[in-house]
């Protein structure tokens, strides 16, 4: 099984690269023959990725959520799977390249640095940890996808405003659709982050004796949650629409990345699992 895991670990970035290339070619060329092929290709890759995650869990006796580089492969899967669901439900097929790019980057980082890890502390085999991490990752996948759609909205907005009716104008969906996809992704991402925080709040003090509310990771996650929560609250109460909300989504995403990076740099956290 270890051999299979190693083969899949090498194959997955190549598969995501191939999907990214197919989506990109279709974006520029708009070949009807590629419309269904790329979706089938993505579906097959997701099945292979699922098999990889299962094999890993069985072989190493823990889900791949205990180190940063294990988490990156789950994040790559979450982004690609979420996009697959969005494409199926909205039938918007021209935006895949911009989202799959993130899966490609996350999987490439994971495949390069992931290590075999058999001995993990008992606390990290807890089921609540699984739920906590998975919901947090899906939450981050949601805000990542939202940021991509917000950026595409901004690009399309400028194209229409400046009367640049070229390839990008023709291939990207309408502003209303891009906004809808972005907002829905934020809502789902925010809900999942909330679940992750709730589970963390209940489980972390029990699991880690040195638990502290002033832990950098907790503070940054809380800040990200507050940013998105307040943005959504303003949207639904005072009407934060269109370009303003899309700008907010991009800023929120950048803030989330900076916050996560900062918390990682600050180090010394009980919340680091295996270092």
């Amino acid at each position: 099984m270890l051999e299979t895991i190693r083969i899949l670990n090498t194959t997955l970035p190549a598969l995501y690269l191939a999907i990214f290339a197919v989506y990109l070619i279709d974006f520029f060329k708009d070949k009807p023959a590629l419309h269904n092929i790329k979706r089938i290709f993505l579906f097959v890759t997701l099945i292979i990725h699922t098999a990889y995650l299962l094999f890993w869990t069985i072989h190493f006796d823990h889900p791949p959520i205990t180190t940063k580089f294990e988490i990156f492969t789950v994040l790559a899967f979450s982004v690609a799977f979420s996009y697959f669901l969005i494409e199926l439900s909205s039938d918007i097929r021209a935006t895949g390249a911009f989202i799959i790019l993130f899966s490609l980057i996350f999987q490439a980082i994971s495949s390069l640095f992931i290590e075999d890890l058999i001995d993990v502390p008992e606390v990290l085999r807890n089921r609540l940890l699984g739920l906590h991490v998975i919901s947090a990752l899906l939450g981050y996948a949601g805000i990542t996808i939202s940021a991509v759609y917000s950026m595409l909205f901004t690009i399309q907005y400028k194209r229409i405003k400046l009367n640049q009716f070229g390839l990008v104008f023709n291939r990207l969906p309408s502003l209303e659709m891009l906004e809808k996809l972005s907002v829905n992704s934020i809502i789902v991402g925010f809900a999942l982050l909330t679940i992750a925080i709730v589970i963390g709040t209940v489980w972390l003090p029990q699991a880690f004796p040195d638990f502290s509310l002033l832990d950098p990771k907790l503070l940054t996650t809380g800040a990200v949650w507050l940013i998105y929560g307040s943005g959504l609250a303003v949207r639904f109460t005072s009407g934060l629409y269109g370009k303003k909300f899309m700008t907010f989504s991009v800023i929120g995403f950048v803030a989330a990345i900076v916050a996560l990076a900062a918390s990682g740099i600050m180090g010394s956290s009980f919340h680091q699992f295996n270092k």
Partner: protein
Amino acid sequence: MNIIGTTINHHTASIEQREALHLSKNEITGFIDILRREYLSDGFVISTCNRTEIFGLPMDNDLNVAKLQDALLEFKQVDGLSNKNFLNFFSCGAIKHIFSVTSGIDSLILGDSQIHGQMKEAFQLSVDMNFAGTVMRRIFDTAVKVGKRSISETGIGEGAVSVSYAAIQVVEKIFSSFENRSAIVIGAGETGELAAMHLKDKGIGKITISNRTLSKAEELARKVHGEIIHFDDLKDYLHNFDIIVSATAAPGYILGYDDIKTVVKRRRGNTICLMDLALPRDIDPAVAKLDGVFYNDIDSLGSIIDQNIKRREKEIPAVEGIILDEMQNLFAWYNTLEVIPTIKKIRDFFEDIRQEEIEKIRYKVHEEDLKKLDEMTKRLVGRLLHNPTIRLRNVAESGLNYQEVANYTSVITSLFEPQNENEPVKKS
């Protein structure tokens, strides 16, 4: 194929000249009577704002196409036009032209789908007037097929090529659907009407018309099942609309920067599309700077049209491929018509010999044996003629090489045509 044709169109004549020769449906009916009486056994006449064309099979093989042109000029009593304003077509060229017209690649607006329907109407009129025999009907059917294939198999009809439709194309990139949207069309002229019709076709949720002359607004509103707003009250209601299309003949702006700024405020930042299809413009272009306001005028929409035309131009080779393909099919069928009499001639020739030989032995053999001999000789002749018949048909069906078919039929005719035995053998 002995088809001939002549056309006066946007390539050869000005709009005034084309208008002068335009034929109404009644006039076409009258003109076909003249053609049938004096010049053509079958044919059709089409007349649109961009072309008047006459095509058909001449009664006399030596018919000069100029006579058709003279007949048309005389029928319409038009001066100032000469044969130089016409293009003439014969045989393959005529068929290719008919197919090019039907496919839209000969249209003033490349890929114009309207011409397909107009050609179909012209063909139908010809059929209704018994002015179309087997060959002409086959040409009509194939031309219609070319038109359909061009639309479904190529991108010749894709993309907006009119300002009003280009405006709708931009709006489609702002709103994902029209169902929950409201639009107002200011100006009930030709452009306004076209825009209103496009919006209706796209399923706009609510459409309102405003025009200085109320009766015109009411008339257009009836056509698109819309409502009306008095022109003087326009500014009080503008904030209710997601899409504003303006196409009036006003000499200056009817909506200024401050008017639209007020609208944006009242809409609390909700997106608004302003499509200014008027010349001179109706809306101050400075409104484009406002957040959430999308403004387009004829110039900016023109770039969409240019792109779409270029995209359509790239499709011309594909359409020409379809035309060639269907021409081959048509001529294959037509050549088959040419060889059928030859095949019949050979078969008759062999059958006559067979029967003569059977007659010679009729009283020399028993009746049962005669029956067997009769059947055997029938089979023999059938088998002997099978390959030449198939070969001849294949040559005919293989394509456009009429000369090859003519050579084969000529050789066979001269080889097998029964001759008077007293007639001296001709030496070449």
